[in-house]
Structure formats: structure tokens, C-alpha cells
């Protein structure tokens, strides 16, 4: 029962931001493939292929910062209200272990983002297969995968930064976080991240629980 209540609270906080972001992401995918369709119709298939394979003009590059925007929006919607007037005290006073309630909150936010990302990737792959062979679509998916990992990492880092009680630490975390995220967002060379994705995935998994450190510092009364 308690987990249902925790999820209910998190849903109330993030629902409009999540719905807004997911809608925006769907529109971006539609825009990308309308552009592809336009390119096929007006410049011809040969030129479109030439652009993608030899000139490096990736039709999916407008998607680059979209997952990250979603991660930041959901994290802010979820964690900022907890810090206004130190409302996190209410959450930590609930009759449930501190780390458990925090991990439930985090899992819910992360799961909502994942749903959006899976939907976005599904649409991308579905529309992609209409216009391109499976090899190209696979390479595109390899290229955009780190951007979605960046979205999740951004979500985890914002939780760390927002829950941190000390401004100086927030600035440090922001700088380190910015550097971290830049690793995920290099130029979109087709399938350029094929050897790095597993490493980035592990990095994201490691970052996923760092926010517990900020909550621990809050509980200790660090100012």
C-alpha cells in the first residue's frame, strides 16, 4: 500500500511535465520523418542517402537534446517541490525507511522517463523502417542511444543537485554533472558510439543512486 501512495504523490507532481514532454518528443519524431519524407519527395532518394552516408548530415540530430530536456523537466518537477520549505522532511517522516522511500520516488520518476523514451525510440524505429533498411535504422539507434542515457543521467544528477542542502556543493555538482553529460552528447557520427554504449550504460547505472548522498547530507543537517 505504501508504495502506491508514494507513486501517487510522485505522479501528482510530474504528470503534466511528463505528458508535456512525451507529447513534445512524439512531435519531434513526427517532424524528423516529415523532413525525411520531404527530402525523399523533393531531392530524391539518392541525394538523401548521400547526405546521410557520405556527408554526415544526420536527419535525427534535432533529437539530440530532447531526452535530456525530458530528464531535467521530470527531475525538477519531482524534486524541486520537495526542497521548497524543506518539504522533504514530510517525506522522510513517513513510516517507511528513508532510503526505501527515496528509491521508490526515484524509481517512479525513472520509470516514467523510460516509458517516454521507449515510446520515442519505438516510433523512431517504426518510422525509420518505412524509409530505410534495417542496417541504417540500427546504426541510427546506436547513435541516439547515448542521448537517452544522457536524459536518464541528467535526471539522476538533477536529483543529486536539487536535494543537496549546501549551495556550494550544488555548484560543484553542476559543474561535474555538465562535464559528465558532455560525454554522452558528442557529434552524431552514424553508429559512432557503438563501442562506448555499454560503458555509458554502466556509468548511468552508477550515477543513478548518487542522490542518496544528498539526502544523507540533508538528514545530517549539513548547511
Amino acid at each position, binding site marked *: *500500500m*505504501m508504495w*502506491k*501512495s508514494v507513486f*501517487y*504523490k510522485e505522479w*501528482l*507532481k510530474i504528470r503534466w511535465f511528463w505528458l508535456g514532454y512525451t507529447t513534445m518528443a512524439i512531435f519531434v519524431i513526427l517532424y524528423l520523418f516529415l523532413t525525411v519524407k520531404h527530402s525523399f519527395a523533393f531531392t530524391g532518394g539518392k541525394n538523401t542517402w548521400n547526405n546521410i552516408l557520405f556527408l554526415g548530415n544526420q536527419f535525427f540530430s534535432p533529437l539530440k537534446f530532447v531526452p535530456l530536456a525530458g530528464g531535467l523537466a521530470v527531475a525538477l518537477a519531482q524534486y524541486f*517541490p520537495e526542497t521548497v*520549505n*524543506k*518539504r522533504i*522532511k*514530510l517525506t*522522510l*517522516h*513517513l*513510516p*517507511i*525507511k528513508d532510503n526505501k522511500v527515496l528509491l521508490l520516488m526515484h524509481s517512479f520518476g525513472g520509470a516514467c522517463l523510460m516509458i517516454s523514451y521507449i515510446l520515442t525510440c519505438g516510433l523512431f524505429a517504426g518510422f525509420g523502417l518505412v524509409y530505410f533498411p534495417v542496417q541504417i535504422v540500427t546504426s541510427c539507434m546506436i547513435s541516439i542511444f547515448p542521448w537517452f542515457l544522457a536524459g536518464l543521467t541528467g535526471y539522476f544528477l538533477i536529483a543529486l543537485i536539487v536535494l543537496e542542502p549546501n549551495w556550494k556543493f550544488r555548484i560543484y555538482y553542476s559543474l561535474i554533472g555538465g562535464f559528465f553529460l558532455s560525454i554522452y552528447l558528442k557529434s552524431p557520427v552514424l553508429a559512432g558510439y557503438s563501442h562506448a554504449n555499454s560503458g555509458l550504460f554502466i556509468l548511468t547505472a552508477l550515477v543513478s543512486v548518487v542522490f542518496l548522498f544528498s539526502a544523507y547530507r*540533508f*538528514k*545530517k*543537517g549539513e*548547511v
Partner: protein
Amino acid sequence: MNNVIECNDLTHFYGEKLVFENLNFQVKEGSILGLLGKNGTGKTTAFNILNGFLQPRGGKCFIFGEDTQHLSPKTKARIGFLIEGHIQYSFMNIHQIEKFYSGFYPNWKPAAYWELISKLNVSPGQKISTMSCGQRSQVALGLILAQDPDLLILDDFSMGLDPGYRRLFIDYLREYAKAENKTIFTTSHIIQDMERLIDDLLIIDFNRVLVQSSVNEFLGNFRRYDFVLENEEADLKRKHFILNIERVKNKVELYTYSTESDVKKYLTDNKILFSNFRQVNMGLEDAFIGLTGKY
């Protein structure tokens, strides 16, 4: 009677600044204890330590026998907590917040919440962020009553409330606590409110406990004597039995636990001429200011 709260040798600093040192106090089961102190004497610090939101530099606090730094979920369920300013999840409406909290407490009593809410002129769909501070206080109180905790910890419950809401809050709370044998540990910057609510008091000043007793005992023993000095230059030396002297020219207010005869003897022995000597009855606010001083 068991101690619901027990703090032993509590010591805390902010940086190098000492907040309190070796603070000891207890709250007995079924009592309503008010923590009083001037601004900056560590009331909120004590509340934060009690709720496990601050790790003291020294000493320990126990609630229902558990260290407050590591309260179990079972013990947390027995504690109702009101944050200063009646803070709640303002993004929820009054229906949603009741639904949210009810999932955590097996003995949840929705009737207690809705009875209090029915006194407010609000709809179930009204968001807490759009309510007045007084209405929010009733929502926060209703949630605590529905939780039905054994111990209520209320941090500055008067903050932001107009006199009507303060009275409603206090009367409702006191009646509930007495009827259900609940323990309350509270603070408020409005001493008249505390006088109406509490049975026992704990007055802290910078670094130390000044008084821990029942309100009646304190008001019965702590005295104020007013008199006029014949010689405006007369030097009233502080003696151990004189706890505070407030003096405007030749008019003197002297605060002490000693009797009238002891004070008069002191004045006479020191050749201090005086007139219009009288004992002045005090309420809790006068006594608090008399004990801690105006500044």
C-alpha cells in the same frame, strides 16, 4: 509515568557557535510540554534533532526508547509532526492529500480529518497552495488527528495564524490530547497560546535550561516585585536569588523565586531606600520575559 521523549547531554554547534551544551530534558507520557526560548536559543535545532533531521555534536535523544537518529518506521508511525508554518504538500488538493497519507497508517481515521475540513469554506478539489495560512493549519492538524499518533511534535504552530484560527487550533488540539491521553511537545512564539495549551514548560536560554516544571508550579513560585527607588542612583547589585532586574530610572521590576520578606531584607541590608513595594501577578508571557529579559 514513562518518558516519551528523553534527551541526554544534548550539545550542538553551528560552526564554532555553541547552540546548547549538555541539554537534558524529558517529556512524560500524556503531558503537553511547551519549549520556550528567545529567538536563536535552539528551539528549532532541538526539534530538528528530535525528528532526526540534524545530527547533534554530542548527546542523544530518544523517542519511545529509540535513538532519534535511527527511528524505525513503526515508531515514526506513532509520531505526528507539524512543520513550522504548517507546511504540507501544496501541489495536492485536500482530497488528494488525505488519500496520500491514508496509505501509510493502518489506523487512519478519515472522519477526524473530514470533520475538521468541514469547518472550512473549501471544496475537496481546492489545492492547498491556494488556501490561506489558517486553512492550511487546519489541513495539517486534520492530517495529524487522522493519523492518530501517540506523540505530537508541533513546531511553532501559531506561525501565520490569525487569532481565530489560533484559538480553534489550540482548543481542538487540547481537547483531543486530553481525551485520548496523547503526548505533545510543542513550541510557539506566542506565549499566550502556549499558556492556553500546555501543562508543563521547558524554558531554555542561550546554552542552558532555565526551568523545567509545570506551568502552575512555575507561575506559583516565580515572582515579580515592583518598587520605586528613593535614590535614582542606587546601585542594585545582582545577587544569586535575583534572576532579573528591569529598571527604568527609579522604577524597578525585580524577578525572583524568593519571598517578599527576603527581597525587602536584601534592600534594607544594603541601605537601599524604596517605596510602593508590591508583588505583581504575572501571566506566562510576563513571567517568561521576566526570566529571560527583554533583550
